């Protein structure tokens, strides 16, 4: 699992590559924490190269959801692969987090809010 962290204004971007499961979730957790500690309001998760996500992987985002929302922020996922997207839809994550097709729409979405 590879994690690339980027900063765009008040948005923390995480580009995930590979499989996000219980063991790699710890690293993603650290990366998110780092963004929030830096005072980032929103998070964009680029899942273009994310092949698989387990329930523990989703748990990381769920855990930070409230903290981000309390800060009037949002967590947006972009460019998710079909298999990951179907997992998100099944769990109803799409109803509480923003899921868009590409990074640009994610940014637009976040800036609008």
């Amino acid at each position, binding site marked *: 699992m590879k994690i690339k962290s980027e900063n765009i204004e008040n948005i923390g971007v995480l580009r995930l590559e590979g499989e996000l499961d*219980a063991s790699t979730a710890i690293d993603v957790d650290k990366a998110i924490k780092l963004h929030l500690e830096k005072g980032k309001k929103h998070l964009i998760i680029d899942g273009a190269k994310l092949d698989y996500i387990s*329930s523990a992987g989703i*748990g990381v985002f769920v855990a930070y*959801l409230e903290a981000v929302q309390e800060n009037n922020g949002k967590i947006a996922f972009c460019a998710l692969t079909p298999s990951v997207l179907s997992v998100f839809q*099944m769990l109803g994550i799409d*109803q*509480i987090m923003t899921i868009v097709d590409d990074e640009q729409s994610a940014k637009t979405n976040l800036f609008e809010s």
Partner: protein
Amino acid sequence: MFGKEFNISLALSFLIASLCFFALFMAQSANSFEWSNIALSLDSWESGTCLSLGYLFAYLGIASLMARIEFDSVNQLFGYLILGGLCCFSLLFIFYEAKNSLFVLIGLDQTHDTISSFFEKLIVTTSFFLFSLSSILSIKKLVFINRIRSEIAFWNVFEVFLLILLFRSSLNLNIPALDPCLLAFGTLIMAWLITKVRWVALLNQKKILTLVFLLCIIGLFISFLNVFSNAFIIKEYQDVFILIDEFYLIFPTYITISAFTYVCFSFLATLFNMPISNVIEQKEHDIKGFKELSSLMGQEITGDSLLQSKKRQNWQNALFDRLFDLCLKNTGADGGFLYIEDNSGKYKGGPFYKGVNENKILDILALFKQDVLRFEEIYEAKLKQDHRKSKMPFQFESLYAHSLEFKSAPSKVKGRFAENKKQLGYLFLFKKYPNGFDQYMLRLLRAYIKQALIAIHNAERLDYVIESDRLRNEMKIAQKIQNKLIPELTKEMGHLKVSTYYQPASEVGGDYFDCIYKAPNKQLFVIADVSGKGINAAFHVAKMKGIFQSLTAMDLDLEKILNHCNNSVKACFEKGVFISLIILDVDQKKRTLNWARAGHCPILFWDDAKQKLSELEGPGIGLGITNEVLFKKSSKVQSKQYQENDFFVLYTDGVIEARNNKKEEFGLQRLKNSLIKNKDKNVEILKMGLIEDLNNFRKDETIFDDLSVIIIKSE
């Protein structure tokens, strides 16, 4: 073995020998002070008796002295070489001197008649050949202290040469250039032979001193003999040699010269080896240190955990104590300390220090850890302060110290050993003088520390094994408990036939299913999947079961049950944990299904009339993901009628996400196909067919998520 009697015999031998020589000396001094006249003062047979007895007892004295000294295998061989030579020559002298006395006693003419000449020849040749044989055997053993292939070949050449020489000695041949050739070759071989004194290196200083002492005694004995020989015997001996033909002497002479040269060379080698023998001894000592550390390694630590930890502590202390002692002694350090830390950096080691004030250890370490100064400087700075206070037991004028931080050996075992290079402690050694620690010592120290670390590492691995054993046992208990959480569902409930399958990915799993019998015709099925897996998820399953059982006992409708479940999960479970769930309420009388989905895989419904397998979809967010308002908004209870031969399948995502070795997922389509294939069969066959298809698909690939399936068929 050599008791009092032996000491007495030793003293007696020397006493009698001295008396014999003294008698001769007195007889001589009575007439004249000229040694050369000594023979004239006595009858030849009297002097012969005295001399032969003198030789005999002097020989006995030396022999018993050699037996008295404790030899080990190496210098014993050398001792034999010298003793063999002495023995033969003494035999020659003794018999020769005793001969005249014997002749007088038995009334034979002392002149060289046939008998006496034969007798003399016999003595001389026997002595020489005995000497040759014993010398060769002893030298051979010494040369081959450690056998080397090339040397064996060379020795064989030497033996062949000796045979040729013996042959030459036995025959009076007159071949020109034979003797010079033999001489040249013999010299070459002798040159090779005298370099084979490897055994000298095996002697320690004490043994070398013993050997030198012995050789000096023998030297004295021989010079003593020479005095008398020169005085009056030599001429007679020369007569003896004249008796024997010259060619006979070639072999014994060569052997004598070889043996003598070998002994002399060995003596020189021994002398030159003296200064470095303690280096070898030191090395032996160092190796002994390794053996000691290794023997501590071998000690087994078993027993119950409490006893074990106490034993471990004692063992570790013994190991560190030994390590410190070895490092101190084998580097000749004047002082030092070994400081052992626990994981948090607190002082844990026993009192492993020498020549340092215990209270100062921490100060020294603190300065060292700051890494501001090199240790020598730190200590010197420290010393200046201490010098004023005069608190140091050692007043170092100048010093050099070396420190080695030792870390536990990196391991290939996954887990904490591999991840953490634990700092175990510090070793400091001091010497009074600068440059006290050479490279060899530093290498030795590192090697000792490494050895000790291996011991600790092994002990930790043993701990790890014991711990994982304990965990395995506890996991078994957890497994038993969890198996009770997942109920065995009744296979027949009215017109419904039920079959279930459950397979956790590890010992315990994060899947949960259950069935509540609300009335004979009303059943409430639930299937849930807790996020994560393993023991963590298993605990959440236990909690979930508690929540679910309590809520269903309150006879609430599905929506309320779900809402309460969401609130409970949100409140009781840690952040990030969520549960996907489906509740299915079956009313057999009305043949209706009511269901609500909370982020779980939809129910698969086989409509037998339409011959169609569909997913009973619906909105819904997983439990514990969102707040009450959003959850309520998204959740929806739905209904559907069912008929005879219809069946519904509840499953967890582990089924569709099961992978084969190509990393392909089993997927929803394969699941559907498998069910459709057996749609007309009973639930057991439906289930078995599905399991078989799943197993055929993934083959030997292990499952990484829990698998749960409930198949309910209306018959």
